């Protein structure tokens, strides 16, 4: 495996996806640099989540390809992409509702650990050590994202904001290179969004690249190094936030004709 010499962690080339007659994505090419916070915006139905689903293997693309960390992908199973280092959260929060907050995060550690059937049955020293490490890391992540509830609280009993943060913690547990967040600030008030922004900046400072779908324009402008705009499945702009804000095509399509 050749080391990633390109400055881009993730590159999409002409990615296309259609559902029957409907073209959800067409000819989308993006370039995401290592260590940046990259925003993906666009009206509802523009194809943002579809793009996420392709990057994480939930959908298979119909055209084009993408390369991540030096490897090219056309079709890939979700768990392999997770192993390669892409972790995500979901637009509609998909936690393991009846498992505890701690267990949710521990599941995130699954792909970086190895205890199998034998270890589970015998609980030998290696297995126990790994289990301790997993639990410790999970507790750490719980604090890191700012959840102050008992670790045993069932995920479904957490508040909305806590659930969003738990999903991020779970994704972080997979030791990703790229963290793909699908509308993490949805339904949050200004205070909560503020603390989310701080969290994301801390995550980026730890070396993880962040890909962010959001509708909260202020958050995007404050947080992102660069932003891409999708409309009707096509990329209409890819630039720094200040330029995006002034881009006429973007204004017409998304910001509704009123430069913020």
């Amino acid at each position: 495996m050749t080391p990633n010499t390109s400055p881009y962690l993730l590159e999409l080339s002409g990615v296309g996806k259609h559902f029957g007659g409907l073209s959800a994505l067409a000819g989308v090419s993006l370039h995401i640099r290592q260590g940046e916070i990259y925003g993906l915006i666009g009206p509802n139905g523009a194809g943002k989540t579809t793009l996420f689903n392709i990057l994480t293997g939930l959908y298979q693309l119909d055209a084009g390809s993408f390369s991540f960390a030096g490897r090219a992908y056309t079709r890939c199973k979700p768990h392999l992409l997770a192993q390669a280092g892409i972790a995500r959260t979901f637009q509609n929060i998909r936690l393991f509702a009846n498992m505890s907050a701690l267990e949710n995060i521990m599941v995130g550690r699954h792909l970086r650990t190895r205890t199998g059937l034998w270890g589970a049955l015998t609980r030998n020293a290696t297995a126990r050590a790994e289990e301790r490490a997993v639990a410790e890391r999970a507790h750490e992540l719980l604090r890191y994202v700012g959840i102050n509830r008992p670790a045993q609280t069932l995920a479904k009993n957490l508040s909305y904001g806590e659930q969003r943060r738990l999903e991020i913690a779970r994704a972080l547990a997979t030791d990703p290179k790229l963290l793909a967040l699908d509308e993490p600030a949805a339904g949050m008030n200004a205070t909560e969004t503020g603390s989310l922004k701080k969290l994301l900046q801390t995550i980026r400072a730890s070396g993880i690249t962040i890909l962010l779908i959001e509708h909260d324009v202020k958050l995007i402008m404050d947080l992102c190094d660069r932003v891409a705009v999708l409309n009707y499945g096509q990329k209409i702009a890819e630039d720094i936030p200040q330029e995006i804000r002034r881009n006429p095509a973007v204004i017409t399509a998304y910001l509704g004709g009123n430069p913020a």
Partner: protein
Amino acid sequence: MRKIIEYKQIVTTIALGVLLAILPFVTDALLGRGWVRILDFALLYTMLALGLNIVVGYAGLLDLGYVAFFAVGAYTYALLASPQLGLHLPFWIILPIGSLIAGIFGALLGAPTLKLRGDYLAIVTLGFGEIIRIFLNNLNAPVNITNGAQGISQIDPIRIANFSFSRTHEIFGLAFPSVHLYFYLFLALTLLVIFVSARLQDSRIGRAWMAIREDEVAAEAMGINTRNIKLLAFVMGASFGGVAGGLFAGFQGFVSPESFSLMESIMILCMVVLGGMGNIGGVVLGGVLLVVLPEALRNGAGPLQQWLLGRTPVDPESLRMLLFGIALIVVMLWRPAGLWPSGVRRRELEAVDGIAQQEQDTVYDAEH
């Protein structure tokens, strides 16, 4: 505080141990030997329920044809230790073989079908169970393998190193009849299965299963190879079924396709769901209840009517089935999560945090 809880646990465990040790004798004395045999069956079915619990309770895979693996285990045992094929291999060889073959069947069925969505998997497993039963019922021509509907009889009873379980033995001056011996054997194996289940539940694999049960898409996105992990659950469940099947064959001395019908699969599923899916204690409770209660009803329905009405207008067998059906409905309406669901266990664990938890909650409520 913790010391007291641990002390309580030790005392409870010892008390339970003593109770189980004397249970066969007590039952024999109070209710007769037939009831000890019923307890033996209760243990066998509890093993089955625990096996299915891995598939349905942990991994969330709806298997409506679990009895197929029970059948494979039983018939493997029967074929290797009876006049049918003239083979009489020893117990310690054929039990693992039965388990292995059941596991193989599990892999064969699971590999192409576990990708199916929940309810489609349900009908496929149901179909598989029926296919096995039909084949067992008809593989007596052109070559007689299973002896068709008549089944295979004169199966060698279980014998471990010259200790035959089918005879009464005197140990420490106490007479242990065959049914009592089988009770202890099955109890030991059930405890083993419980041990394995408990270990699996609190392990990396157990968590992966539960993640898949809760949300398979999210589980896969978190890096879990869902296909392989589901297959693992399925094969493990199948091999447990195979073990129970082998024991069943040796115990009963006779197997026929009748014992492996769709109704049996449904019954085992009811044990798991009714008892409390995913919770070992609940599943054991379900297993024991659903074997013991129908028997109690069968024996009691006649006398009960006699006592209440002075005559027996309703055939006890029908009444038993009727009450059973009503019980299923009533229990699920009353306790949809089962009699002893895993949430209860969790809340018990949380109670140890006690006061701190209460304070947290009040602050939280005030903020929101």
